């Protein structure tokens, strides 16, 4: 047995060491940067400048650093998923604007981010809340745990009951790092990242508009023009499979109740609320509308909710209603700035006040 273990050791250890070394040193998603990347990016944004070659990082930590650093509370914010991350101040036509959306957001993120703004005394006067269908669905993402302290603060402020399942996720960050050290997928990502190191170096480009993946001074992001044509078709195909198989499997009114408590909290703080429906790519919309029974229920549920809560509902899930074309989508769920601009003009329901 000793010989077997020794041989297995000789075989595996060199690979394990190489993988760990590459994953930690290249670190394309900045798992091991000890918030250095987020601090550097936040410093550029806080100077009022834009970032070129914005990489994957902990968006929540970055947002925390930005909110902590801004001197005056933003007048208007948008909060949502990556689908609303491209919304910038010029689209909404507001000057003191901050995009507080984060990728893979769920309602826990909303609670944590609003808790963060509240605890740092930077609540806005006006808020745009993305009402993505996935938000009122059981979520599997737990990235919000990196701003857990604000989540707890938010819960107490919004009078939302503590979800006991959350307790098990305390070691989220440690597990995430441990996974990343020996992950084969992260190793592959690191190698790809290394090949394009120059393109991946963060740059302060002042007031210029980023040409590559960028982060704007107002928290919004930009995509390179090439992004549109490279993997769009593949992404659409993947998403069609995903949408058929696992998109919107469950509609739990519990999530709508949490959203209601968030809305009540915002109202109590005299914040003007808008809800945003953002469009889905044409082919995918057809599939979802036809094959996903829950989609209709969620769509109507959101409309009813906005009416009941007397919140202005802007935009639409339906790309045909907004006269969008396929080239205005990066992938099935993400449209470009131009599309966002025209979609935000659609008023589905106008609140009385």
């Amino acid at each position, binding site marked *: 047995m000793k010989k077997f273990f020794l041989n297995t050791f000789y075989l595996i250890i060199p690979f394990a060491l190489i993988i760990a070394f590459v994953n930690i040193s290249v670190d394309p998603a900045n798992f091991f940067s000890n918030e250095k990347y987020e601090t550097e990016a936040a410093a550029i944004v806080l100077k009022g400048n834009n970032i070129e070659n914005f990489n994957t990082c902990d968006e929540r930590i970055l947002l925390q650093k930005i909110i902590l650093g801004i001197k005056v509370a933003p007048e208007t914010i948008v909060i949502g998923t990556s689908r609303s991350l491209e919304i910038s101040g010029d689209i909404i036509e507001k000057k003191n604007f901050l995009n507080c959306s984060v990728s893979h957001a769920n309602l826990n993120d909303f609670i944590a981010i609003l808790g963060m703004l509240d605890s740092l005394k930077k609540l806005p006067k006006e808020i745009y809340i993305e009402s993505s269908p996935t938000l009122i669905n059981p979520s599997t993402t737990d990235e919000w745990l990196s701003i857990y302290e604000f989540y707890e603060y938010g819960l107490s402020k919004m009078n939302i009951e503590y979800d006991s399942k959350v307790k098990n996720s305390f070691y989220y960050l440690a597990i995430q790092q441990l996974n990343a050290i020996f992950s*084969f*997928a992260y190793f592959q990502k690191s190698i790809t990242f290394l090949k394009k190191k120059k393109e991946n170096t963060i740059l302060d480009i002042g007031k210029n508009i980023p040409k590559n993946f960028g982060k704007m001074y107002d928290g919004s992001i930009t995509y390179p023009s090439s992004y549109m*044509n490279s993997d769009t078709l593949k992404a659409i195909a993947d998403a*069609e*499979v995903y949408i058929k198989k696992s998109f919107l499997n469950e509609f739990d009114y519990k999530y709508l109740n949490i959203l209601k408590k968030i809305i009540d909290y915002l109202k109590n703080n005299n914040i003007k609320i808008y809800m945003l429906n953002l469009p889905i790519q044409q082919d995918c919309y057809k599939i979802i509308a036809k094959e996903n029974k829950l989609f209709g229920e969620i769509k109507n549920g959101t409309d009813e909710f906005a009416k009941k809560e007397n919140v202005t509902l802007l935009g639409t899930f339906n790309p045909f209603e907004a006269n969008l074309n396929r080239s205005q989508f990066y992938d099935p769920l993400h449209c470009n700035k131009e599309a966002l601009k025209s979609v935000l003009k659609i008023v589905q329901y106008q609140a009385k006040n």
Partner: protein
Amino acid sequence: MLFNSVEFAFFFPIVTVLFFLTPHKLRWLLLLMASCVFYMYFQPIYILVLALIIVIDYIVGIQIEKQESKKKKQAILIFSILANLGVLFIFKYFNFLAHNINYAIDVLKVEGRVPILNVLLPIGLSFHTLQAMSYTIEVSRGKFKAEKHFGIYALYVMFYPQLVAGPIERPQNIIPQFHEKKYFNYHNAKIGMILIAWGLIKKVVIADRLGGFVNQVHSMPSDYYTGIPLIISYIAFPFQIYCDFSGYSDIAIGCAKVMGYDLMANFKTPILQKNINKFWATWHISLTSWFRDYAYLPIRKKWFPKTGIWLSIFVVLVLSGIWHGADWTYIIWGLMNAILVIIYNSLKHKKYFTAITNRMNTWVSICVTYAFIFYTLIFFRSSSVIKAFQFSINMFKNIGSQIQLILKNEHSERLNLLYIKQSFLDFTLGILSIILLIYFESKFKNNNIDSWIFTKSKRFRWTFYYSLLAIFIVFGVFKKSEFIYFQF
């Protein structure tokens, strides 16, 4: 638990080390507990279905042995078979039958409907049902003594390496091994690890990469693709399913081997056979031999003693089709294979046929054989019979114009037609992996990697091991992906 998951990377070494640390008397308990954990990772509640099958067949086995009258033995056996098939029917075939009856009701405009059951098929049910049945049949035939140790019997049905996708074992092979005291054997462990590594390469590097192309084509409406993408899918799917399923079998056999257990071989390089008979003799051996021994031979002996091999082929392959899934696509797939084998067997002794085949180069014979087998697999993969027929027709449309578009060298055209929305790297790796697979399987000569690698020098072996590991890490597709045969 999936063999290609992080969980299993911890589960397997922990269970194996505990196995060798546990006294022999308690090893069955350890393996049974491990098997329960392994199974409950998928659908915990369905372990009750498995428990029901185990309890019934355990009692039946003992009762059959106690009976002296042949008639009573047969009556108990029939009860056991009906119980096993009843469970399988409820979970796997009831809704299929109900849908078809309801369709007929609609067409005939008759009143009434058969209710549809809201049940999911327990993972691997078709596999462990057959395995449990082979036990009671063997006991009733007097070829195997009923197992008195409930734990060992339960382990026979639940042994985690082959629990959810086979190989479908026979009691004679595996139960005595559970009684034997196993010692750690370096050679066994080495063979086991090589099989596991090779199985993982087949699944993660080849099957999952090819799956990207195939799934893309089959996820789209049937008129979305024509010509080249369909031809690529037509070629890729057989390799995908072979690598997926044989990869699973290799990992299963390898895991058992490390602990000193020998499971039966399930594949013997079926992708390099010169005719369809040889293909079926080397493909999913544990299933085809099960149908041969427990379905065809008894039927033939009792009711058709004078019929020849044709009936055998028909029974085995059609049953195999039905076993795979409750859908017309699988039944047609089984029928098509039966027809192909019957045609081949009726022609193989004709002079003109042998004259043609003798002149054929080995590789040409292989290609011709697989052109037909691949065609039947269109039905296996398609979600409906109509889609399969449309696939067959659309495969020959627009090929010329598509070649012209690809030659124009426009990225979007290549992306859509040649790479089927995967990347250039995926496309290149897909082709390379098929070529390498064929190369290595040709070296194995109807055996598996373990019998080939030990003919090589130590230096070659170690280089090969390092290369396998490097290929796995750099070119593996590390998305959560189930094995295709789990659905059966």
